[in-house]
């Protein structure tokens, strides 16, 4: 392996999606506001744009008004940590000026249902020193090698177990519900006379076919037959059949990895990047040694298992046995360790011993003040008749407090959430640690706080309540005329 690494240039690009939240931890549509602040800083020269643009390609809007995406330039891997810390510190500071915060996780534990969803896209490019771009064969090998470790990588990085205020039952809720992250196929180099533009992409290029120019054939790296960009792993650039990349320059040739749940901290993000680099180098080494990357029969099944159970999943081996995901992850780390050593990189976080971030930092704890009400609300029974166990205040809509004796009340019950979190960077919520749910009842006269010892007499859904009103009219019609 002597001299192997010296002949390669490795570049890494990161797209990190973030959410704007208020000081209570709830999503607010403030991406516009943050962008305006940044523009103000640039116009008023409060930041050194020269320094920033060396590292950052852009900060952009996403479809959701609370979502921001930070995109780095293609970076030397040694600069990833510095760059991500620089931009996240800056964003945290900008948000604090507007009394806002940034949430760095993938799925908001309350308001993502399942959207908005954040992800981290990591692009890896490995280029031979004498060339300008990542060759086709490199693209194929890196893609297929990352894909080979897909279940292990998902098991190691899945960290979105809570959605809509409860455990979703999936280690990566994001991957389970994502509509766009379709699984890629085993990449191959395909020879073709023309690029066929899929119908839904024809608006982009306005053609049904694009023929090769001077060459008789063109060799395209194909990981998806129709050239769809949004896959969990995608070879990108002009050598691929991705329609959006048709006119891009050869330097944009890379493998983009999208399945990674947002690591909460920069340290974990850097380690995930390093692991992916190790896998990329292993792929190039396999190519050098002319070894094939074999497609696993149970890859899809293991992928689903990793999404469901994360590091606690059991994977199916080639001979049909089961093996723990943890063991597979440790094997993967052992496999790539020589390559990381060549780069002089050491994993800094718990990932080095196969412990995912979610296990280290812990899942958010969910506690409800009134389990029965919680269950009723989940069933859609939001109109409750409750026997109050003690007297309390009725807060009117104008803010007055009237005293209310212990009695039975009817109304619409809604939750009040208290969120607690951990921050490893200033003004950035790394992960939510606790969700506490208490309840309020809305009546026609005001609000009543529901206590844990209050007794629910009956619960009804909105349609049930509507049926009751119609039933009373029906009885009225049978008994007497409405005048």
């Amino acid at each position: 392996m002597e001299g192997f690494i010296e002949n390669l240039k490795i570049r890494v690009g990161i797209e990190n999606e973030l959410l704007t939240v208020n000081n209570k931890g709830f999503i607010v549509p403030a991406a516009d506001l943050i962008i305006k602040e940044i523009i103000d800083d640039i116009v008023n020269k409060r930041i050194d744009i020269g320094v920033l643009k060396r590292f950052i390609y852009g900060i952009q809007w996403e479809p959701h008004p609370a979502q921001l995406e930070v995109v780095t330039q293609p970076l030397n891997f040694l600069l990833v940590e510095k760059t991500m810390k620089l931009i996240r510190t800056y964003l945290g500071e900008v948000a604090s000026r507007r009394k806002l915060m940034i949430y760095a996780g993938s799925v908001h534990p309350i308001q993502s249902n399942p959207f908005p969803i954040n992800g981290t896209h990591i692009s890896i490019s490995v280029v031979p020193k004498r060339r300008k771009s990542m060759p086709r064969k490199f693209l194929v090998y890196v893609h297929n090698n990352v894909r080979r470790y897909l279940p292990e990588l998902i098991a190691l990085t899945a960290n979105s177990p809570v959605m809509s205020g409860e455990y979703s039952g999936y280690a990566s809720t994001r991957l389970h519900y994502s509509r766009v992250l379709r699984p890629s196929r085993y990449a191959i180099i395909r020879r073709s006379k023309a690029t066929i533009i899929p119908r839904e992409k024809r608006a982009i290029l306005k053609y049904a076919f694009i023929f090769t120019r001077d060459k008789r054939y063109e060799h395209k790296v194909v990981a998806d037959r129709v050239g769809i960009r949004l896959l969990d792993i995608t070879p990108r650039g002009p050598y691929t059949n991705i329609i959006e990349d048709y006119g891009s320059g050869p330097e944009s040739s890379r493998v983009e990895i999208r399945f990674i749940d947002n690591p909460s901290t920069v340290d974990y993000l850097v380690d995930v990047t390093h692991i992916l680099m190790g896998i990329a180098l292993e792929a190039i080494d396999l190519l050098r040694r002319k070894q094939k990357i074999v497609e696993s029969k149970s890859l899809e099944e293991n992928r689903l298992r990793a999404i469901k159970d994360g590091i606690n999943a059991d994977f199916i081996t080639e001979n049909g046995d089961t093996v723990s995901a943890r063991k597979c992850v440790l094997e993967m780390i052992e496999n790539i360790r020589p390559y990381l050593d060549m780069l002089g990189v050491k994993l800094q976080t718990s990932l080095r011993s196969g412990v995912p971030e979610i296990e280290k930092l812990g899942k958010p704890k969910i506690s409800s003040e009134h389990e029965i009400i919680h269950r009723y609300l989940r069933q859609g029974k939001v109109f409750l008749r409750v026997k109050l166990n003690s007297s309390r205040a009725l807060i009117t809509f104008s803010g007055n407090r009237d005293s209310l004796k212990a009695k039975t009340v009817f109304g619409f019950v809604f939750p009040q959430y208290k969120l607690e979190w951990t921050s490893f960077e200033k003004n950035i919520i790394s992960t939510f640690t606790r969700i506490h749910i208490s309840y309020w009842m809305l009546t026609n006269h005001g609000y009543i706080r529901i206590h844990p010892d209050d007794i629910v007499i009956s619960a009804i859904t909105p349609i049930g309540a509507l049926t009751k009103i119609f039933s009373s009219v029906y009885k009225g019609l049978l008994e007497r005329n409405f005048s």
Partner: protein
Amino acid sequence: MPRQDNRHSFPLNWRLLRHILALYRDINLALQEINTNATSNSNAASIFKKIINRLKAINTLGDNVSWYFFLHIQLSLYLSGNSIIRNSRQLKRFLVSVRNALEKMIVSKGTIRLLRRKDVFVNLRNPTVSIFVPEGFEDLIPGYRYIPGTLPVILTAPHASPPQSDINTGKLALVIAKRTSAYALISNLPRFIADPNRVLGRVWPFRRILEQLIAKRKIKLIIDLHTSSSTREHLVEIGTWYGFSIPKKYLDMLMQIFDSNDVTYGTNSRFVGGDITFYHSNIPLVSTVQLEISGEATRRDLRRIIRALVKFIKKFSGVKSYGGLHRKS
């Protein structure tokens, strides 16, 4: 508990729409029956029986369907329960409210999405996360400034408080209310804490007080004031929720007054109306209109808008007959 995966519930959406259309038909029939003042109630009773059975069938379609109804029908109707209907007038009001809600269910974008997507019920919000409040809710009550009036018109400024406020909307509401004796409701809470113009805002005091005023029959018209942050083609964008929130004659009256005061306007271009426009216009005889004023409006422009709105409110309030229980569209 693992979340139920409803990805294969496609036919359910169509069944829901079929039920909604049938319900809409039955409620119209019930209204016709009541309007004919028939001596016997047996026909009406049989229609109501059908409606009840239909609702029971809808209730079996799932929790999310129930929640879909909740989003369209007035909260105060549910909260009042049986006590809201004591005579045929109240019954008509109730039926028209439900019919208006059903109309919106049929035409709304949400329904179209419902029908297109296979996994729609995964995406539909559930009660525990659709309407909730943050900790410290009681300290944020009331969170609005209320200006009582005498005319049946209220000016609302739900985004009057910074940051990212709709600039001038609070002042506009105050000035116009002062000049016309209309009611005004101005939010004191930033939209980042509570946005009264969203479904999430329906339980906040701003919306409850508005619904109470409507229930007391004090309000016939809601003018919801907003400012767009970017440049717009027109000075004012009028949002009427695709024509469902205000009768055409009042919209024509507003446009005529805007024309005569040199206020350029567009209708339902992008700002069709938020939740205030959508939700409160279900009540019969209550009209709502959202005005999205261009962020680049000068003082002179604002003066013209004030003049036009003062004229409109006075003219609207001077109209003695509202034409009975008309349909909005």
